């Protein structure tokens, strides 16, 4: 991986980029972007940010999703993102089930540590855009900088327990990107 990466954002996939499906997205035609999310990612790319996507895929452990199909879903995400000028640099996912005790299923920080190892980048000031308290906690324990969006399961998460004090909350990814790029510039 590119050693010169400095500007990086990490996005949770379901609920931030695309709509949440009750049984998880199982095929490319079930993958539906949240309005405005792809354009917002295009803005990040044009502003020189690398984008890494994270996602929990327990369907791989229980056989309801074959990892090859996950590739097809990501193929579609890549194509649609590209048509908005967005470039996804890498996708990190956890293939394990709920009870498997892996280190990468949110709220464990394993997936972020993997990003740290592979990209050799300090996650200190790296924003993580999430829609759940599990993802927020995982990002926090990895030393990254989580924010919450109200899309996906975010609205419920905002009212629920376990939210750190001072956590910034945005309506959606587009609103966060707007704010983030203004602050950074």
């Amino acid at each position, binding site marked *: 991986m590119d050693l010169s990466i400095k500007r990086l954002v990490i996005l949770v996939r379901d609920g931030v980029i695309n709509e949440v499906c009750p049984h998880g997205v199982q095929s490319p035609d079930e993958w539906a972007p949240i309005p405005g999310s792809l354009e917002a990612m295009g803005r990040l790319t044009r502003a020189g940010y690398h984008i890494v996507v994270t996602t929990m895929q327990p369907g791989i452990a229980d056989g309801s999703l074959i990892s*090859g199909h996950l590739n097809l879903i990501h193929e579609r995400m890549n194509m649609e993102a590209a048509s908005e000028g967005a470039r996804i640099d890498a996708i990190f996912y956890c293939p394990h089930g709920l009870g498997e005790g892996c280190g990468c299923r949110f709220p464990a920080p394993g997936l972020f540590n993997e990003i740290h190892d592979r990209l050799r980048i300090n996650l200190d000031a790296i924003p993580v855009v999430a829609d759940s308290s599990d993802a927020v906690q995982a990002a926090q324990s990895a030393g990254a900088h989580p924010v919450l969006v109200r899309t996906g399961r975010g609205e419920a998460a905002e009212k629920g327990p376990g939210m750190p004090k001072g956590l910034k909350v945005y309506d959606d990814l587009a609103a966060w990107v707007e704010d983030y790029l203004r602050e950074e510039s």
Partner: protein
Amino acid sequence: MSDRRTLLFELGSEELPPKALFRLSEALKSEIVDGLDKAGLEHGAVEVYATPRRLAVMVKELSGAQADREVERKGPALQAAFDAQGNPKPAVLGFARSCGVDPADLERVETPKGTWLVHRFQQKGQTVVEILPGLLSTALERLPIPKRMRWGALDEQFVRPVHWLVLLFGGEVVPFSIFNLTSDRTTYGHRFHAPGALSLAHADDYPTVLEAQGHVMPSFAVRRERIRDQVEARAAELGGRAVIDPALLDEVTGMNEWPLAVVGSFEERFLDVPHEALVSAMKGHQKYFHVVSNAGDLMPAFVTISNIESRNPDVVRSGNERVIRPRLADAAFFWQQDCARPLADHVDALKRVLFQKELGTLHDKSDRLVVLAAHIAEALGDDAEAARRAAVLAKCDLLSGMVGEFPELQGIMGRYYARHDGEPEAVAQALEEQYRPRFAGDDLPTSNTGRALAIADKLDTLVGIFAIGQAPTGDRDPFALRRSALGILRMMVEDKLPLDLVSLIDVAAGAYEKQGMAVANEVRETIFEFMIDRLRAYFADQGVDPDVFEAVRLCRPTVPSDFAARVHAVSSFRNLPEAAGLAQANKRIRNILRKSGETIPEQVDADLLREMAEQGLAEAMSGMEDRVKPLLDQGRYGDVLELLAGLHRPVDAYFEAVMVMADDAGLRLNRLAQLQALSNMFLQVADISALQQAG
């Protein structure tokens, strides 16, 4: 060369598009081989590796450097090199300076055109380390990537973000930078089974390290066969056999690094649904291989490939079963729902579906097909009523729920629903067969009604699209008209149908005209020419010589099956010993007739035949005419030409003895009339003057 080592180039990336993977890897291989060959670097076997996360090429026994070359640069001619005092002229001084040597060190070389000054030197061959970076950049640049993604700030980009590069020559890393990465000896294994870095001590270690430590089967071909074996073995355990579509096998191979077959089953009640729909659900949506019994009947089971070795295979199995169930239930639902309404109920709704802008709705198309299909059926002496009914229903299944969900089932579902509705079997079968042949080498329709509808459907599209000025040009053929035309011709030729293209085009055009759209005569002629061009390609594919085709084309037969019969006759005729001489004679006759410019009488006057050779030819010809006629009527062109081949002696004798262009006008015109009659005998089959002289 002593220094020969293995070269390894690997590019690791985010998951590559599975359908493009194989093509991409083969292209990378051939670009690299091309580059090495152009650079003059000798090498042994070349292996290619491709998985969803990597493309790699391994070149065995690559020489470490180009051979040194003796280079000769040519300077001025000796004649112009020195002045009267023997001092070098400025041209020589300049040349020597540009070579970096003293004028005295230039050598002389003798040529037929005189003596020249030359500079000879040994050029050191470049090393692999010097050559590879440029070579690989070019190879990557030239890969056939449809949408090469580019993002302002990050310029060089690959089809997917690239994460690592390996470039090893033997045990050494060759420095190479591209995609903001630098080459190294570190590769990565399977995403989950071996996510850590793997160091390669030597290029040769690559496949073994990946397989033993990385949980990756790097070779596409090996992996594909491993998948095939597993799928076949698991299906056999189920007491059946897996149906392995090569395209699906390739796609699945492109989705896995460590394939493991998983079997599953589904409820038997789903087998009441048309099996094609179940297969579409399994294959299209889930990339499952379906399983049939030894008798060929679909079994309620499937085999799928997982990229991950699960600790809990039963969970994986039941998960797969859980996922396919709603798909199959959808298919069952559509089948039930569609069967509740007869196909004919959809006829009215076809008025709301556009066939093609400017060419009306599917209902309009269906009306035209009624005319055209019935005409074809009648011409074939078949049941026109069945053809009309099939044309009315032809497009109705496009409005069914099932075809909405699985578009590839068009026609097939039409057949099922028509049978369910109690339509005549000929109609049901035609509904499916109308789309044949769907691709090169596909089966043709087997029923008469099917043929009539299949020809009508394709010809209607062809005529309509030409009429609105959208005929194919160059690479652009958005309506696949070339394929349609070839399909029509294959049916006519291979099934020997007595159908006339010109009149069919007229009937098709007439059907458009009835709907208020004129099809000009020039357009009809263009369509005919387009079809004949396709016929040319068809025969070229069959190995027919171009001049044989041309000889027939010049006679403009308009019935393709008749065209084909003539082509075969001329092909065998040209193998006869008499062929070359007769072709030559016909060419000569054609020239004489073209140059004469006189009005040639229709009849030959026997009294004016003075020479023995003239009389001999006339006798030979008159004996033949009566025998040729019935053969022609039966389309036995081969026999006709074989008979006419018998004329070669009298014809040879004629040209040896007779001066055609005699001064006496009466004799001359009579001779021309005789030659014209001779030429016409051949033209009843083909213009054999177009045949090129054999070897």
